């Protein structure tokens, strides 16, 4: 029964995702027809401009949306598992903001030194920031057992990081500001195929790691005590959860800036569609879902006020905040 359901959901998600990829390649300020696009993709065209637009702008952007959206959702899922709380996500806990801060720092200092930061460098800096922010959250979580308080603390850390970032922006050179501003709003524009390659490697690693953790994550659903009783190495599991979720979130932030709410809302949507919390299906499901949502939001972001682009975070917020609110209300009901 439920197997059938998850099967159908998977097929549907995959089909939708493929459709969305096609649509997002077709959409854009320059009109390129379907036939033209197909011939560009199959390499049967001489139109260098069109080929350039599709191969170097639209395709990388679509792929980045898929990979980063998936990564964001995955990071959210892992964090929700770790805290056993459905209202946490990389953005809420300040991880994204932490990553943003370090990336901004690097950008500004390197730019002022006349150097350009490489994609891997960005990922690394973001990961560092993410780990620092996460470290603070964990430090507080030792003292504060109340989850709502912990979330509030995460938000506070996020604010501090954002404030510092803003401060940096205020005093930075004009040239870097433009760059930084776009980036810090959250945007998928300007991603190259090379960036896609790097993020694929990083996110594939995170995804594979999560799949390997699916067994202990499943046991962890019964609570720490039972998981321990079944032979789960709790300490190791928690460390791996934190590392993998921070790395995914960091990677996303490094390339696309902070994208909010995908991380919180996607796991919730997926488990309600699938009607299960089995990590073996949740991990790929969440990844697909995150990819789909991000791709959709990106599509909206760039078409709604075309040719002006809206920040992707604005779209995700508008679309996903209701989901989060419904989720919190339901959760409240369950408690009572």
């Amino acid at each position, binding site marked *: 029964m*439920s197997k059938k359901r998850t099967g159908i959901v998977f097929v549907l998600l995959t089909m939708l995702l493929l459709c969305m990829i096609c649509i997002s390649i077709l959409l854009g300020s320059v009109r390129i027809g379907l036939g033209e696009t197909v011939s560009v993709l199959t390499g049967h065209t001489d139109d260098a401009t069109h080929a350039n637009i599709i191969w170097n702008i639209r395709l990388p952007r679509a792929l980045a949306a898929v990979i980063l959206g998936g990564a964001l959702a995955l990071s959210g899922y892992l964090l929700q598992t770790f805290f056993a709380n459905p209202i946490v996500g990389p953005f809420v806990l300040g991880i994204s903001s932490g990553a943003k801060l370090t990336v901004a720092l690097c950008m500004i200092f390197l730019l002022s030194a006349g150097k350009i930061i490489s994609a891997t460098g960005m990922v690394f800096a973001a990961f560092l920031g993410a780990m620092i922010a996460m470290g603070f959250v964990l430090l507080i979580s030792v003292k504060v057992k109340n989850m709502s308080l912990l979330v509030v603390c995460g938000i506070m850390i996020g604010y501090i990081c954002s404030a510092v970032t803003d401060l940096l922006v205020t005093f930075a050179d004009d040239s870097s500001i433009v760059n930084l501003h776009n980036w810090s709003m959250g945007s998928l524009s300007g991603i190259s195929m090379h960036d896609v390659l790097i993020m694929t490697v990083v996110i594939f690693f995170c995804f594979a790691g999560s*799949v390997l953790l*699916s067994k202990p994550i499943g*046991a962890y*659903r019964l609570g720490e005590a*039972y998981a321990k009783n*079944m*032979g789960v*190495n709790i300490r190791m599991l928690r460390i791996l959860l934190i590392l993998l979720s921070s790395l995914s979130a960091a990677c996303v932030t490094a390339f696309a800036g902070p994208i909010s709410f995908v991380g919180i809302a996607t796991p919730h949507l997926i488990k309600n569609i699938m009607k299960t919390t089995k990590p073996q299906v949740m991990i790929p499901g969440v990844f697909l879902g995150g990819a789909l949502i991000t791709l959709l939001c990106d599509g909206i972001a760039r078409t709604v006020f075309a040719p002006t682009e809206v920040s992707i975070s604005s779209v995700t917020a508008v679309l996903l905040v209701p989901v989060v609110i419904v989720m919190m209300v339901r959760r409240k009901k369950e408690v009572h």
Partner: protein
Amino acid sequence: MQNEKLITDRLTIGYDSDLIDSISLEIRKGKIVTLIGPNGCGKSTLLRTLGGQLSARGGTVYLDGRNMQLLQGREIAKKMSMVMTTPVKTELMSCREVIEMGRYPYTGMLGILGEEDKKAVERAIAMTGTEAVADRPFDAVSDGQKQRVMLARAICQEPELLILDEPTSYLDIKYKLDILGRIRTLAKEQDIAIVMSLHELEIAMRLSDTVVAIGDGKIRRIGTREEVFEESFIRNLFGIEKADMELAGSLPWLPETESMEAHKEPHTKAGKPAVLMIQGTMSGAGKSILTAGLCRIFAQDGYRVAPFKSQNMALNSFITEEGLEMGRAQVVQAECCKIKPLSCMNPVLLKPNDDNGSQVIVNGVPIGNMRADAYFRYRKELIPKIKEAFDKLSEMADIIVVEGAGSPVELNLQKDDIVNMGLAKMLDASVLLVGDIDRGGVFAQLLGTLSLLSKEDKARVRGLIVNKFRGDRNLFQDGVSILEEKSGRKVLGVVPYLDVRLEEEDSMSERLSVKEVRQIDIAVIHLPHISNFTDLDVFAQIPEVSVRFIESSGETGCPDLLILPGTKNTIADLQWLKEQGFAEEIIKAAGAGTILIGICGGYQMLGRKVEDPEQAQCEQGLMLLPADTVIEREKVRSVYLGRIEEAEGNLQVLNGKPVKGYEIHMGKTTPYEDVHMFTSGKTGYCRGNIYGTYVHGLFDQKEIFVPLLSVIGEKKGVQIRPEETVSMDEYREQQYEKLAKGLRECLDMDEIYRILGGKR
């Protein structure tokens, strides 16, 4: 070893500080061990520690003989599973999914269930009757069903040991019965070892094979249901000594011996017990034995009786199961009453020291050393304590028989008296005065005592007893008339010299000082600080056996069994052994294959060395057992229930036999080489025919002394008749009955009952 799934060795548990220490538990295949105790006593903490959820603060947990700390999580998970108190919250998980989780330790990297796993899941579902709910969401089923599912999950893990923390909380009676029934089936049919905590005492009482009572930061009692579910103990454990139990419905303790059922009409109104006090004209007039005898007579007649003595002076004390000290005379008397000894029967105990003072023990707990003059000034403050103890006892008895101390007319000590007339007044007791005719001057004793009493006190004396009469009582008829005429009181009886063997308080019994050597010869080294020599009393009933207490090395001879008894000062007595030349003789005898048993202090002497770090003393031992002893300040006082583990040599026949006794010692003995365990729980070791143990009362059970004597007898061609022997408990019981019978023949019981204000 196969049967013990889980053993704890001196385990200390707790979260941030030690909650309970020195926990030694054994949990066996197919047995149900239940933890009971008040809220917050540490039951869950103990279970969590056993389950590896919480690390131990000291000591070791052995799972199947292996130190659990060194085991992999998965290895543990295959042997042990848990069901906790709080219901789990899951999201979108079906009950089946929850149950399947139990296969965790068996599945591969990705946790995909194989055929075998699926079968195990189905079996667990069938066993717990969860078929109907298996595919429903776990969150949607009732608490009772949830608990079943959690049990199924635990079973699915195919454990050999199941730990359940209050498996029945939150459940209604139907599910309670259901879950407990299934747990019992698991133990009995699947041979799974089960440890659980339970709040419902009545259920624990019915279900458990072993009950562990926890309270006051320690394990208070471990034993069978009968041993633990005893009214006074349970009331004390939960602090409900005075609570009215009516609301609780069926009583959470086992009905006590016949005396309770045969309970007759209460003696005085409103449950206040009748108080009879036995005072003597001098010490040694026979108060203790008469008190014991009267206790047994009242118990036989169906009353709830309890003994009481406000202040005892004795070298040897008894340790109650709560670990409190009290005088041994009241223990004997309590046994005569058919009840367990309680420290409130003897609130003040003075243990004389070498240096002109005494250790003062109040309500079972030592409060310090005092010189005589200091104590006399202090004792007034003890009056409320004594009264309190007496009141506690009053709750449990229809008749309390109080024993006085010494003579009531020590005129210089009468102020603030708390042992004789002062006490009688406080308790409103009727007094019987006992004189000792054997020592002569019985008229002067009785009439003189009476005439020295104040008018008020004199009025309390309701009758006289002449004790220790030898010969034809009829010849004393005139004496009785004279006493009655001169005192104006009835002589309630002329009691003959009764041949009854009761455990005597301090002096060694005459029967044990025989020097004659019978067919089976047991020699006990009479150490200068010898203690707890009751260990050998059980042999007194066997005519073929002689127990000799030898004081000089020349007397040793060739005993069949050589005993090194307990001592209050191991190091001093060890030096004495060497000075007297005993040491060589013992080593020689051991070399010749004589069975040598060291008990307590004697056991310590058998090792390599005895070290007292506090006194900076260290004495070389007899080097017969490869073990070292370190004397510690902390006194081990506990009831022992164990067995002979793996004796070598002649005592091999005892292996596996149960041992019941008690431990009281200061010190820890640890082997430094591989050596066979003699008594379980690391309380004793042996090598060849040399055995050492901390357990007192080792020989008391028939299971032990009969095979022991048979082995010795076989060697010498002596036949002992086991059917004519009884265990020490039974032997004592026989003696009590004999005493009561003897007293009934000579005491005017009708008159005594009349004095007590009751009708017969």
